[in-house]
């Protein structure tokens, strides 16, 4: 019979104040197979741990139970102690008699009785634990970064500069993300393009980075250290190596469509370059706008292309890559126009969203940096900025704060004043959230130096009248109605997870939070990891954030990925599913329920990929014939735990 040792911790008076630890130790000493039972004031202290060590050696214990605080606190401590005495770490179990007992009860007799049951339950469990060693997995020492915005770029560069190969996948024809659309950045007012383009160039030139634009993730399989990615590379019909950026093709292209880079404020041709600094620096053919290739309906661009860069026969390719870690930086989109009908967005041309206004401010934008109304190209003299357009509105829109709008609205108002010196900027706001280095000062500067008028309150109605946009609102501080005849309205629309994020999350098996952003493993302590091991989150895909935060998280994600890639082998918890082949009939119900695709059928029996299995045990509860169970939390263990928990 296995020899078990029980150690009851007083935790000072934290446990001993409510649980009669002497009695508990004595009762446990009577339990079948318990050959050693003692109590001590602080088991986690060095002398406490030494008691365990000595007892294991002297009494030849096969396993130990420490009745103490929650396993989240000292399970590792005591498992390490047991290990140093020669036991397998799984021969040590924790009975939580503090958080789940002494701290929540007052009646000493009853608390003691309960503590005894909890401890016996742990004894019954540990006596049936298998000695297991962590599962070792080799690592493919390359990384995949999904998304070529600032976060993705930063992660890719950090990884590449550390010496690891990176595959950077971006679905649009150029990297740069939303940051490349911005004019200047708060709070320093650096030119966004000026600070981003060098990084983009670095990406394109970096020998460790394989850049795949116009590409999408099709399928991800595998597990930490050993992912397989299927990437769909869509044809651009232009050979980037041959394209000389001569621009002859656009001149002959008969099609004009709305230019997404300028958010529809300008147009572009079917063959186009997304923006002058695009990386990769090449033109691309937008097949959805082109009159057609099957058969070739126009073909003028190819006719004029001297280097012969245009290749209508380009086909979609599926490229498979093996990587050890994945960083998801799929970014954000602005809240859909259609959703903001109440502010006239989409209805009146001079009601703009934040990004459109950025384009108006940008020197490379549709107005060459002049603030002009889209409707009549006149300089607006009164501009109303509305914060929280779609954010912080749990009833109608998004319940969360989009975080960056307070700052960029201040920036917009400020930059507007820099462009239109005699103009007046109004900002409707709920609160000003300007936490961040230099942020509060920035907002103050907008008010004090640029005379921006902050109005605390909500806009109730916006409508067009005689070429003006009438804005009705309330100033809740002054308690009076406000009516502004604005020339332009700029909405600080909410940030949403980028389009397709949900689909991508499904492919990656990453959970989404209630707002559709990618879920981090822990909101405080693991903000960069996803729940799937080996996959990390960066940038606005996880939650709204500004550039410095996105960059910080991107570097964090890169560091986390490096922590995996820098190892030759990884170790995985061995408490995974195990199949009793004799009982398995191959019905596949466990395969259906496994959240990690760790189960598969082979020759009519189920097989476990131990590396993918996280040990949740849903398979074992689903199996009708007990043919699959989790190591060290088997139905037998649970049934014995039930028995002693009920005093039997």
């Amino acid at each position, binding site marked *: 019979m296995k020899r078990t040792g029980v150690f009851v911790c007083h935790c000072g008076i934290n446990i001993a104040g409510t649980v009669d630890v002497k009695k508990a130790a004595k009762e446990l000493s009577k339990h079948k197979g318990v050959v050693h039972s003692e109590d001590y004031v602080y088991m986690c202290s060095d002398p406490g741990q030494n008691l365990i060590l000595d007892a294991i050696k002297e009494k030849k214990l096969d396993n130990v139970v420490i009745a103490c605080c929650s396993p989240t606190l000292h399970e590792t401590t005591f498992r390490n102690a047991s290990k140093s005495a020669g036991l397998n770490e799984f021969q040590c179990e924790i009975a939580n008699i503090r958080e789940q007992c002494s701290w929540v009860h007052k009646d000493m007799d009853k608390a003691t009785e309960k503590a005894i049951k909890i401890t016996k339950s742990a004894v019954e469990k540990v006596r049936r634990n298998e000695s297991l060693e962590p599962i070792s997995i080799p690592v493919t020492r390359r990384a995949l970064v999904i998304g070529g915005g600032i976060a993705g770029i930063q992660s890719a560069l950090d990884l590449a500069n550390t010496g690891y190969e990176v595959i950077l996948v971006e679905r649009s024809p150029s990297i740069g993300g939303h940051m490349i659309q911005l004019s200047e950045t708060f709070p320093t007012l650096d030119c966004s393009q000026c600070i981003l383009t060098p990084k983009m160039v670095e990406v394109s030139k970096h020998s460790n980075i394989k850049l795949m634009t116009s590409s999408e993730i099709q399928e991800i399989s595998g597990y930490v250290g050993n992912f397989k990615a299927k990437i769909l590379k869509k044809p651009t019909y232009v050979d980037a190596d041959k394209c000389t950026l001569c621009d002859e093709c656009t001149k002959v292209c008969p099609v004009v469509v709305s230019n997404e880079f300028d958010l529809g404020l300008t147009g572009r041709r079917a063959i186009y370059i997304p923006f002058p600094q695009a990386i990769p620096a090449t033109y691309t053919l937008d097949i959805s706008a082109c009159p057609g290739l099957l058969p070739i309906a126009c073909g003028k661009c190819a006719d004029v292309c001297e280097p012969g860069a245009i290749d209508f026969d380009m086909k979609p390719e599926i490229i498979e890559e093996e990587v050890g870690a994945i960083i998801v930086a799929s970014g954000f989109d602005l809240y859909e126009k259609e959703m903001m009908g109440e502010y006239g967005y989409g209805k009146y041309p001079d009601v703009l969203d934040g990004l459109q206004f950025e384009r108006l401010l940008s020197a490379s934008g549709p107005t060459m940096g002049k603030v002009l109304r889209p409707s009549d190209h006149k300089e607006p003299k009164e501009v109303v900025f509305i914060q929280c357009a779609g954010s912080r509105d749990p009833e109608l829109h998004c319940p969360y704060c989009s975080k960056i709008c307070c700052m960029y609205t201040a920036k917009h108002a400020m930059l507007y004043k820099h462009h239109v010196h005699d103009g007046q900027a109004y900002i409707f706001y709920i609160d000003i959230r300007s936490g961040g280095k230099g942020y509060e000062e920035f907002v103050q500067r907008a008010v004090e130096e640029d005379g921006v008028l902050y109005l605390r309150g909500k806009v109730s109605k916006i409508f067009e009248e005689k070429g003006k946009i009438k804005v009705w609102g309330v100033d809740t501080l002054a308690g009076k109605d406000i009516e502004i005849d604005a020339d332009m309205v700029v909405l600080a629309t909410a940030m949403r997870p980028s389009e397709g994020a949900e689909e991508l999350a499904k492919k990656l098996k990453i959970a989404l939070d209630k707002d559709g952003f990618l879920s981090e493993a822990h909101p405080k302590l693991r903000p960069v990891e996803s729940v799937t091991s080996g996959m990390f989150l960066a940038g606005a895909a996880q939650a709204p954030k500004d550039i410095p935060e996105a960059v910080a998280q991107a570097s964090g994600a890169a560091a986390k990925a490096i922590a995996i890639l820098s190892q030759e082998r990884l170790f995985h918890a061995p408490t995974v599913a195990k199949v*009793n082949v*004799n*009982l398995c*009939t*191959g*019905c*596949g*119900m*466990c395969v*259906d*329920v496994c959240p990690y695709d760790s189960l598969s*059928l082979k020759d*009519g029996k189920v097989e476990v990929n131990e590396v993918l299995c996280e040990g949740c045990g849903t398979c074992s509860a*689903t199996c*009708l*014939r*007990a043919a699959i*169970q989790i190591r060290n939390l*088997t*139905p*037998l263990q649970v*049934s014995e735990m039930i028995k002693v928990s009920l005093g039997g």
Partner: protein
Amino acid sequence: MVNLEDLKNEAHKLLKEGTVKYIIGYERGTNGLLPIPAFIKNPEDVERLIWDPTCVFNLTRFLVDEKRRKASEKEPDERPVGVIVKGCDSRALVVLLQEKFINRDDVYILGVSCEEAGVLDEKKLAKTLKGKKAKNIEFTKNDNFVVMTEDGKTEISAKEILAERCLECKANFPVIYDILLGEKVKRKSDKPFGSLEKFESLSKEERWTFWKEQLDKCIRCYACRSVCPMCYCDECVADTINFAVTADTTAEEKAQKIKWAEKSPVTSENFVYHLVRAIHLAGRCIDCGECERVCPLDIPLRLLNKKLEKEAKELFDYEVGFDPDQPSLVSSFKDEDPEDFIR
């Protein structure tokens, strides 16, 4: 109406041409009207086949035996087995396919339609005949039953002597088959869970008294489990009776066996057995009613399984045995599954 001669001819052809290795059907037995399963290999033996309202068995149960036998053979005959299935039985077949227990290629399905009728309840018949003994019973064109007794022929309305489950039938003709005999007559059961009504209207304590009385009768002969095509597990988790130990079962696997229910036929153990069986049949039971028919103590087991069939339909809009590709009831979920019972 299924013509028995057609059935025999089809069976004869299949055997003669060697399409199937044998045919599982019904033949007359020696215990009164109860037929016995027929395993027919020779074409000339098809004459033994019968088809009448006494053909209650769910013959798909014998595919479980066939699978075990085949697995133990060194050079198995890979031809399919022919099996005669009614509508209800075909749904069992669908579940067996869904759970990959059998391959579609391993069975040749001779479907028979019950049309407007079904199979009889022997006890109801005995009551109707008031002591007279039935010698023969047949379907008629108008879906009544003609019963031959020592006093001659009498025609009895099918409704009077049909098995309860046939009155609540969801598939009066096979949902899957290779050949179909009889017509696909649509029949709508107006009360698919009618037999539950009376019982559900009882109070909690009345229900408890009822079930305690019923399950206390159980002698754990396991006929309910043995006759059930869904209870194809080599070892039943609910009891310690049939440990599936093989030469390569490890000591650790043996040590992991749990007595969820003791062998003693007492209330607590009988309840564990029957509750586990009921919950394991949830989303799998197709209401062939065989468990209830074979119970020597007349425990109304259908009431347990039917209840969970009803809950699966009402809570999760899940119906059993129509689509071999649908995921099982408990290995799937919908976001909108009810959770009003959760705190």
